[in-house]
């Protein structure tokens, strides 16, 4: 007997063609009996075909749900993944770490103005900040600090809100004390130091950021002048809830030093740098062009050598000795401020920039009750900033 559909030879008692599945004459009679139809429909394959249909419907539903959720939440939809990843990293390290990286490097980016340079710095951190836990709450504070103090980017990702409020006070007060220094600082950022105890906070006058591997004739470059907060301290309330002297020791910093005022010390470094730039008739080192590249590199190199800081100290020391009828040398002068102010380098030379930063720290914390030595340093510095 042949199949009426495809013509292949089939057996007489076959109900269906084995090749095309069409019913045969015998199969026609078989299907007249409804109980046979029910038997087929109750078979495993038919049930499985229903499962396949369900799978297709489920998958389509999944796509629709995912698309809808993505439209509603945007990139925030994936925030829990990054939160869990962060928690796992913190668990492995044994302390909270920051997701913000300050050492991203970009090449082949067209930057054609100072405003574009600052905008790029801001966008680099903004892009990373979408993964922060409490970004909505901190965003207003960060934006206020940026606008009030002319800083391109302020990022306190994952920091405690109350702690951030205290730091906001420090920053605002410092720039109120030294208003003419605004504009050269590009960012204040919470990040991970190379090691836990490398620094509490750190001022970096120049970090080459954009187009560092490009020819200056083809691409302008961007530098960051930044203050970094070590996440090991500022993201870990176990440490922050104790006095800073528990970490650095008694009498290391000036009297009354706190975790927040340590940032005033770093801003002190920045203020020294700002005074130096003003002395050299340059507003900032952020936007680097063919015209100013060499000058900027030389300036920063000279600043790092410390002669500017030493000049300030020598002037202040001279004024101090005259005013108070003393005959102190630089080291003794520095010791009147704090132990940190009297830090020596490996060649036993005074680290003058630390002395100045501590003097400013003293000025911030103690105002008119600061040490006389701090007062002379601050007066000298302010003369440079006129």
């Amino acid at each position: 007997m042949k199949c009426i559909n495809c013509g292949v030879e089939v057996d007489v008692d076959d109900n269906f063609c084995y090749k095309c599945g069409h019913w045969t004459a015998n199969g026609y009679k078989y299907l007249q009996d409804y109980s046979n139809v029910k038997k087929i429909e109750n078979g495993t394959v038919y049930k499985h075909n229903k499962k396949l249909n369900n799978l297709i419907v489920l998958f389509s539903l999944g796509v629709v749900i995912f698309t809808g959720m993505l439209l509603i939440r945007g990139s925030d939809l994936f925030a829990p993944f990054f939160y869990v990843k962060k928690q796992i990293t913190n668990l492995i390290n044994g302390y909270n770490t920051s997701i913000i990286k300050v050492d991203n490097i970009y090449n082949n980016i067209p930057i054609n103005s100072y405003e574009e340079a600052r905008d790029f710095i801001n966008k680099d951190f903004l892009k990373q900040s979408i993964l922060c836990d409490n970004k909505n709450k901190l965003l207003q504070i960060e934006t206020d600090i940026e606008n009030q103090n002319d800083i391109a980017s302020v990022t306190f990702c994952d920091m405690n809100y109350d702690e951030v409020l205290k730091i906001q006070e420090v920053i605002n007060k410092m720039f109120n004390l030294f208003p003419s220094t605004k504009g050269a600082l590009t960012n204040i950022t919470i990040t991970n130091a190379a090691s836990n105890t490398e620094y509490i906070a750190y001022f970096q006058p120049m970090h080459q950021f954009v187009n560092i591997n490009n020819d200056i004739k083809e691409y302008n470059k961007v530098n960051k002048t930044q203050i970094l907060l070590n996440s090991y301290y500022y993201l870990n309330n176990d440490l922050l809830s104790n006095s800073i002297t528990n970490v650095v020791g008694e009498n290391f910093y000036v009297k009354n030093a706190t975790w927040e005022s340590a940032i005033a010390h770093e801003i002190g470094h920045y203020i020294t740098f700002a005074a130096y730039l003003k002395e050299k008739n340059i507003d900032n080192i952020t936007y680097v062009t063919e015209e100013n590249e060499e000058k900027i590199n030389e300036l920063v190199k000279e600043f790092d050598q410390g002669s500017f800081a030493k000049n300030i100290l020598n002037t202040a020391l001279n004024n101090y000795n005259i005013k108070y009828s003393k005959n102190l040398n630089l080291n003794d002068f520095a010791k009147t401020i704090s132990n940190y102010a009297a830090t020596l380098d490996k060649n036993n030379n005074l680290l003058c920039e630390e002395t100045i930063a501590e003097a400013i720290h003293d000025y911030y914390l103690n105002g008119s009750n600061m040490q006389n030595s701090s007062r002379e340093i601050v007066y000298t510095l302010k003369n440079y900033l006129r």
Partner: protein
Amino acid sequence: MKKCLNCQKEIKDNDKYCRNCGCLIEKNSHYILVNILTILVTIAIIILIILFIASYMLSR
């Protein structure tokens, strides 16, 4: 001799359809795959819903 998964009647090696019930003869792996995919897609949808709710909680 293989049996049809639907009606358990014997099928020959070269048969594409069961001669008794007319069902398309598939490999076992096909059915296993559908079962696994169904479970995976269901889990994925549940995860999506949890993700959606968690993203709101984190943004507070």
